[in-house]
C-alpha cells in the first residue's frame, strides 16, 4: 500500500507541476463551453425563442398591407420594423450594410390585386350557385407579388419556414377578403365575421411531442449539447498531459529504474491511471457545475441532469474517464517523443471530436459522415450523455454505448500492454 500511495503522490506532484496540462484540462474546456454556448445559444434563440426581426416596407395604399403587418406583428412570431421610406432597390443595401437578416416588400398593387382576385372568386361561386352577378367586375388582373429579401447566411430551411409563415398569414387575409366580397355580392345582411372566425381559427392543430422517456426532463438547447460535448473533449484532451508524462518517463529511464525495483510495475501504471481517472471525473464535476450554477447567471440555459438513473450516469462518466485515460496511455506508449505524443494526441482528439459530433451534432451530418462518426469514441461518449439527458435513457438503451466504450478501453489497454511488453518494460 505504501508503494501505491507513493506512486499516487508522485503522479499528483507531476500533474501539479504540469501547469500547461492543467490549463488544457480545466481552463480550456471552461472557455470553450462559455464561448461556444453563448454563440450557439444566440443562434438558437434567433431560430427558436426570440421573435424574428422583420423589416417591412409597405407601399400598399389599400388596407391589406397594413392588415398584414398588424397580423404578422400580433402573431408573436415577428418583431416588425416598418420602413416605408425605402424603395425596393434600397432594401438589398439595407440588408447588406445594416446587418438585417430578412425583409418584406409589400407592393402598391397588393390590396387591389387581392380584392380583384376575391371578386373573381366570389363571382364564380355565385355563378355556380345560379345567382346573378355583374359581369363587368369579373375580369382577373395580375396577382401582386411580395418580395422576401433574406441574408444569404440564413439556412434555406429557415428562410422557407419564414416565407411559409408569412404565406399562411397572407392566405388568411385573402380568404377574409373573399368572404367579404362574397357577402357583399350576395347582398346579405348578415355579418361575415363569424364565418371568417370559423374558417380562420378552427384549424387542425399540430401537437409537438418529444420522443423521450418520462425520466428525461432536459430540453435540447445549446447548454445541453455544449457542456457534455466539451467536457468529453477536455477529458480526451488529457492525452497532451498524460501522453507526454508517459513518454518522458520512458525516455528518462525512470521506467527502466522502476523495473529493477521490487514490486509490480503494473502498480505504477495503475496509480497513473487512477490519478488521471480522478482528474477526468473532476473535469466532469467542475464543467457540469459551471453548466448548472454559472451559465444561468449569464443568460444561458441551465444544464439539466436528470436524476432518474444516477447509477447509469455514474457508470457512463467512469467509462468515459477510463476511455480517455486508456487512449492517452496508448498514445504515450507508442510515441517516440513528447512532441509526437502532443501532436498526434491533440490532432487525433480534434479529429475524433469533429467526426464524433462534438462541434456539430451528428444528425446534421451527411449520411456517410454519420457512419464514420461511429468510429469516434467521442461520439459514443456523447451519445451516452444524450441518451441519459435528453431521452431519459434506460440501461437497455445505453447497452451499445457501454459495449463500444468497453471494447475501446480493452483495445487501448491491450495495445499499451503489448507495446510495453515489446519494450521489455512490463
Amino acid at each position: 500500500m505504501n508503494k501505491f500511495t507513493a506512486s499516487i503522490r508522485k503522479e499528483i506532484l507531476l500533474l501539479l507541476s504540469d501547469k500547461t496540462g492543467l490549463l488544457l484540462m480545466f481552463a480550456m474546456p471552461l472557455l470553450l463551453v462559455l464561448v461556444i454556448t453563448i454563440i450557439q445559444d444566440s443562434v438558437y434563440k434567433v431560430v427558436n425563442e426570440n421573435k424574428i426581426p422583420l423589416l417591412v416596407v409597405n407601399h400598399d395604399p389599400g388596407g391589406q398591407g397594413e392588415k398584414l403587418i398588424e397580423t404578422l406583428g400580433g402573431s408573436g412570431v415577428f418583431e416588425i420594423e416598418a420602413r416605408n421610406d425605402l424603395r425596393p432597390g434600397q432594401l438589398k443595401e439595407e440588408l447588406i450594410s445594416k446587418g438585417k437578416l430578412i425583409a418584406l416588400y409589400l407592393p402598391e398593387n397588393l390590396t387591389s390585386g387581392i380584392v380583384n382576385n376575391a371578386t373573381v372568386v366570389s363571382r364564380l361561386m355565385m355563378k355556380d350557385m345560379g345567382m346573378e352577378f355583374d359581369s363587368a367586375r369579373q375580369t382577373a388582373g395580375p396577382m401582386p407579388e411580395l418580395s422576401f429579401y433574406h441574408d444569404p447566411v440564413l439556412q434555406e430551411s429557415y428562410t422557407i419556414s419564414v416565407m411559409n409563415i408569412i404565406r399562411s398569414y397572407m392566405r388568411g387575409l385573402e380568404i377574409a377578403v373573399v368572404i367579404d366580397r362574397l357577402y357583399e355580392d350576395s347582398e346579405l345582411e348578415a355579418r361575415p365575421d363569424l364565418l371568417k372566425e370559423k374558417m380562420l381559427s378552427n384549424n387542425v392543430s399540430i401537437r409537438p411531442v418529444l420522443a423521450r422517456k418520462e425520466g428525461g426532463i432536459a430540453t435540447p438547447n445549446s447548454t445541453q449539447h455544449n457542456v457534455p460535448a466539451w467536457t468529453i473533449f477536455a477529458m480526451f484532451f488529457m492525452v497532451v498531459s498524460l501522453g507526454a508524462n508517459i513518454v518522458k518517463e520512458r525516455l528518462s529511464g525512470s521506467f527502466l529504474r522502476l523495473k529493477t525495483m521490487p514490486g509490480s510495475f503494473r502498480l505504477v501504471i495503475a496509480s497513473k491511471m487512477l490519478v488521471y481517472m480522478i482528474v477526468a471525473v473532476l473535469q466532469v464535476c467542475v464543467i457540469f457545475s459551471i453548466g448548472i450554477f454559472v451559465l444561468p447567471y449569464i443568460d444561458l440555459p441551465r444544464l439539466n441532469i436528470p436524476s432518474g438513473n444516477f447509477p447509469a450516469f455514474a457508470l457512463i462518466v467512469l467509462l468515459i474517464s477510463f476511455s480517455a485515460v486508456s487512449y492517452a496511455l496508448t498514445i504515450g506508449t507508442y510515441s517516440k517523443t513528447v512532441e509526437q505524443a502532443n501532436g498526434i494526441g491533440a490532432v487525433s482528439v480534434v479529429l475524433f471530436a469533429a467526426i464524433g459530433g462534438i462541434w456539430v451534432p451528428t444528425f446534421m451530418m451527411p449520411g456517410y459522415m454519420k457512419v464514420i462518426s461511429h468510429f469516434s469514441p467521442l461520439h459514443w461518449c456523447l451519445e451516452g450523455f444524450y441518451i441519459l439527458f435528453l431521452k431519459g435513457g434506460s440501461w437497455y438503451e445505453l447497452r451499445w454505448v457501454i459495449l463500444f466504450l468497453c471494447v475501446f478501453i480493452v483495445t487501448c489497454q491491450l495495445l499499451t500492454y503489448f507495446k510495453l511488453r515489446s519494450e521489455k518494460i512490463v
Partner: protein
Amino acid sequence: MINPPVIRVENLSLQYRDAAELSLDHLSITVCKNDIYGLLGPNGAGKTSLISILCGVFGPTSGKVTYYEDSRPMPPARVRQVIGFVPQEYAFYQELTPLQNLEYFGAMYGLSIKEARSRALETLAILGLQKAADSPVMRFSGGMKRRVNLAIGIIHRPSVLFLDEPTVGVDVQSKHAIIRHLKQLSRQGTTIVYTSHHLAEAEEICNRIALIDHGKVIAEDTLEHLLATHRQPDLAALFIGLTGEEFRD
C-alpha cells in the same frame, strides 16, 4: 584473503532481436563481496547490456546469473531488494525536487514514508544537495543531476550497486564527490559494479577490472596483475593494446 562471491555470471549470451551478432558472447565473470568491479570496454562492447541483465531489466538469451548472500543463492525477489541501479540516463522525474524523487523511489524500494524521508535528507547531505533539496531537478546542473541519479540508487542502502557511467559529463567537483562516496560505500561493505570510459577513474577506485570487447571478456583480474601480465604501464595502454585503435562508432 578472497571474499565470497556475490554475483556469478556463467556463459551469458545475449542476442537482440534482428541483430546478426551476439551482444554478449558466452561471458563469465565473478564479482566478490566488497569488490569495486570495473567493466571497461569500447562503445558497443556489451557493458550496458551486461549491467541491464544483472539488474533484471531483461533476461539473457542463454547463460546464468546467480546472486549469493552468505554464500547461498539468492531468490530473484530478494535480489531486487538488495541491488541498486544507477543508469546512464537521468532516471528520475525532472519536474520533482530531489527530496520528492528520493522519497518516491525509497518507497518503491519498500521503505516507509518516514524512513524514506530521513534517508533522503541524509543522502542529499552526503552528496552536497541539501540546499537544493526543494528545488525542481530540471533547474540543476549536469553534475547535480548525476548526484541525484546516484542518490536514488543508494537510498535503500543496497548491498550491490550497479553504476553505468555515473560520472559522464560532470564537472571535477561533482566527479570527486561521486567517487569519494563510492569509496565510502565500498568501505561500508557495498559491492560495486561500475562501467566507465574514464580509465584514470577506474584505476583509482576499482580493485578488479574486466575488459570486455565484442561481448566477450578479453581480460579480467586485479589492475596490478593485468598490467603485469600484459606488460603495460597503465590501464589506458592496456586498453588500447587489447582492444586496438579502431573506432567503434
